[in-house]
C-alpha cells in the first residue's frame, strides 16, 4: 500500500471530488472499494502459502456479511451525497445573491431605475388586478351569479356618442313578454325614502323591486314574507319589507315589527316581513360599461315596484311611496330620452312615462333611465342581451 503523499487536512472540495454527484453511481464505487480489500487480502494469504480456495473462504470468513456491509455503505454514501448537493445548492444560492447585490451596489443609478420600474409595474398590476377582481372576477352575492346579466338599452345622445341606458317600462314589458332566453326577469331602483316615526322624519336608503327580482336574486325574508307577485300589481295593499340591518338597529330586532304600519311621509305601508341578512342590490353603471363596479347598495326598506303593463301607451310605475305631486311627471319628446326612445319604440312620442322618484334631486337624470336596471336570468346562454336588442332594433 502506498500513501498518497498528500498529508494534512483535505478541504471539502477534495472530499467532494471523491463523491459521485449522482447517487446511482454510489453502488459501483462501493463495490470497487470492497473488491480491492478482498482481492488484496486473498493475494496476501496466498503469498503466505494458502491455495486460492482456502484463501477465499478465509477472507469470506474474516470479512463478514459482504452484501450487508455493501448495502449499509451505499446507504451512508447516498445520504451523504444528498446532504452535499443540498449544501452546494444553498452555497451557490448565497453566492449568487451576494454577487447580484455587489453588482447592483456598484451601479446605483441602474439599480434605482430598476427598483422604480419594478415598484411602479407591480403597483400598477396590483391596482389593475384589484379593479378587475372587483369588476369582473368577484362573484355577485346571489345564487348562480354566473347566470345573471344586466339588461340595458343602447341609445345615443347627440354630442356624446353611443351609450347604454336602463330599460324603459315599455322595454321592460317587451322583454318580459317576448324574451325566450331569459328564465326570470326583475327590475329594481334605489333611492332615499323618508320615514316618520315618533314625530321625527329621517331619510333612509330604500329600494323598489319587482317580485320577479325577489326570486331572481333570492331576496328572501327571515321573518314574515318577502315581496310577492300579488304585491306587485297596481292597486294592491301598500306593503314594505324591512331591511335586516334596519330591523336590528332601528327596531332592536323586534319581531312585532311585522304587521306594524309605518308612515313614509304621507304614504303608509304595512310591514309584512324582514329581509334576510346581507341582501343587497348591485350598483350598476348604466351609462357606460354596465359593470357593477363591485359596489353594492343596501336598503333599509324594500317596496314592491308596481309596473302597470295594462296600457303600454301610458305605462306607469307606481313603485315608490312619495308625494303624489311627483306622480305623472310627463316626459315626452322634449326630454333627451325621447330621442332614443324614438329609436327603440316607434310609438314613443306617445309614450307617456309617469315617473315618480323619492330621490327628487336626481329626477331629471332618472327620467332618462326611467325604469331602472333590469336583471335577467337566462336559462341557457347569458350575455345575449345585446344580441337581443340588436334584433329588437
Amino acid at each position, binding site marked *: *500500500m*502506498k*500513501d*498518497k503523499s*498528500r*498529508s*494534512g*487536512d*483535505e*478541504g*471539502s472540495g*477534495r*472530499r467532494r*471530488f*471523491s463523491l459521485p454527484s449522482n447517487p446511482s453511481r454510489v453502488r459501483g*464505487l*462501493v463495490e*470497487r*472499494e*470492497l473488491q*480491492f*480489500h478482498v*482481492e*488484496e*487480502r486473498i493475494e496476501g*494469504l496466498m503469498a503466505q502459502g494458502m491455495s486460492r480456495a482456502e484463501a477465499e473462504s*478465509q477472507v469470506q*470468513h*474474516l*470479512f*463478514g*456479511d*459482504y452484501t*450487508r*456491509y455493501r448495502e*449499509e*455503505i451505499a446507504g*451512508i*454514501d447516498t*445520504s*451523504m451525497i444528498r*446532504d452535499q448537493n443540498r449544501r452546494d445548492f444553498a452555497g451557490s444560492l448565497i453566492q449568487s445573491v451576494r454577487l447580484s447585490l455587489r453588482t447592483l451596489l456598484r451601479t446605483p443609478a441602474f439599480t434605482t431605475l430598476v427598483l422604480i420600474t419594478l415598484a411602479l409595474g407591480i403597483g400598477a398590476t396590483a391596482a389593475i388586478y384589484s379593479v378587475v377582481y372587483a369588476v369582473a372576477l368577484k362573484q355577485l352575492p346571489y345564487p348562480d351569479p354566473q347566470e345573471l346579466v344586466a339588461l340595458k338599452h343602447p341609445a345615443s345622445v347627440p354630442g356624446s356618442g353611443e351609450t347604454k341606458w336602463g330599460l324603459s317600462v315599455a322595454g321592460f314589458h317587451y322583454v318580459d313578454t317576448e324574451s325566450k332566453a331569459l328564465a326570470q326577469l326583475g327590475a329594481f331602483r334605489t333611492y332615499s325614502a323618508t320615514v316618520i316615526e315618533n314625530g321625527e322624519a329621517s331619510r333612509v336608503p330604500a329600494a323598489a323591486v319587482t317580485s320577479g327580482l325577489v326570486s331572481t336574486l333570492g331576496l328572501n325574508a327571515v321573518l314574515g314574507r318577502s315581496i310577492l307577485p300579488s304585491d306587485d300589481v297596481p292597486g294592491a295593499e301598500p306593503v314594505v319589507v324591512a331591511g335586516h340591518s334596519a330591523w336590528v338597529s332601528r327596531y332592536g330586532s323586534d319581531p312585532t315589527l311585522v304587521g306594524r304600519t309605518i308612515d313614509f311621509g304621507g304614504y303608509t305601508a304595512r310591514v309584512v316581513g324582514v329581509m334576510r341578512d346581507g341582501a343587497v342590490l348591485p350598483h350598476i353603471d348604466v351609462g357606460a360599461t354596465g359593470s357593477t363596479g363591485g359596489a353594492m347598495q343596501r336598503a333599509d326598506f324594500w317596496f314592491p315596484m308596481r309596473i302597470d303593463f295594462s296600457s303600454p301607451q301610458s305605462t306607469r310605475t307606481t313603485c315608490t311611496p312619495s308625494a303624489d305631486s311627483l306622480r305623472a311627471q310627463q316626459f315626452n319628446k322634449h326630454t333627451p330620452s325621447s330621442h332614443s326612445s324614438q329609436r327603440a319604440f316607434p310609438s314613443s312620442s306617445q309614450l307617456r312615462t309617469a315617473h315618480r322618484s323619492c330621490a327628487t334631486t336626481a329626477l331629471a337624470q332618472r327620467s332618462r333611465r326611467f325604469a331602472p336596471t333590469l336583471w335577467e336570468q337566462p336559462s341557457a346562454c347569458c350575455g345575449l342581451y345585446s344580441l337581443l336588442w340588436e334584433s329588437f332594433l
Partner: protein
Amino acid sequence: MPVRKEAVPDLEVMYGTLDLLILKTLSWGPRHGLAILLWIHEVTNNRLLIEEGALYPALHRMEKRGWLSAEWGTSDKGRQAKFYSITSQGRQALAAQVKRWSQYTQVVDLLLRARAVP
C-alpha cells in the same frame, strides 16, 4: 490470522472503539481501508478482534461526518483504492475521543480496584 468471527461480542461497542482506532491510525497519514486494518493488527500484535467488513461503514460514516476525507488513488500494486485522510475536524474528534477513552478506562479501573466498604 487470529481473528475468530464468533468472538465479536457487541457491535455497538465495536463501532465506537473502531472509530477511535481508525482516527488514531489515520493521524499518521492517509491510508486505504485494508492498510488501516493491517496497521492496527501490526501495532496490536493481532490481539484485536475486528470483523473486516465493519471497517468500511465506520469509514464512510466518519467521512459523512466530515472527520475523514477520501480520494481515489493507486495502491503500491497498481490497483485503484480509496484513500482516507483525517481532517482537522477529525483531529478534534480524535482528541475528544482519546480523552473520553482514558477517562472511561480510569473510572472502570477505579471501580475494579475498589475494595468493599468495611
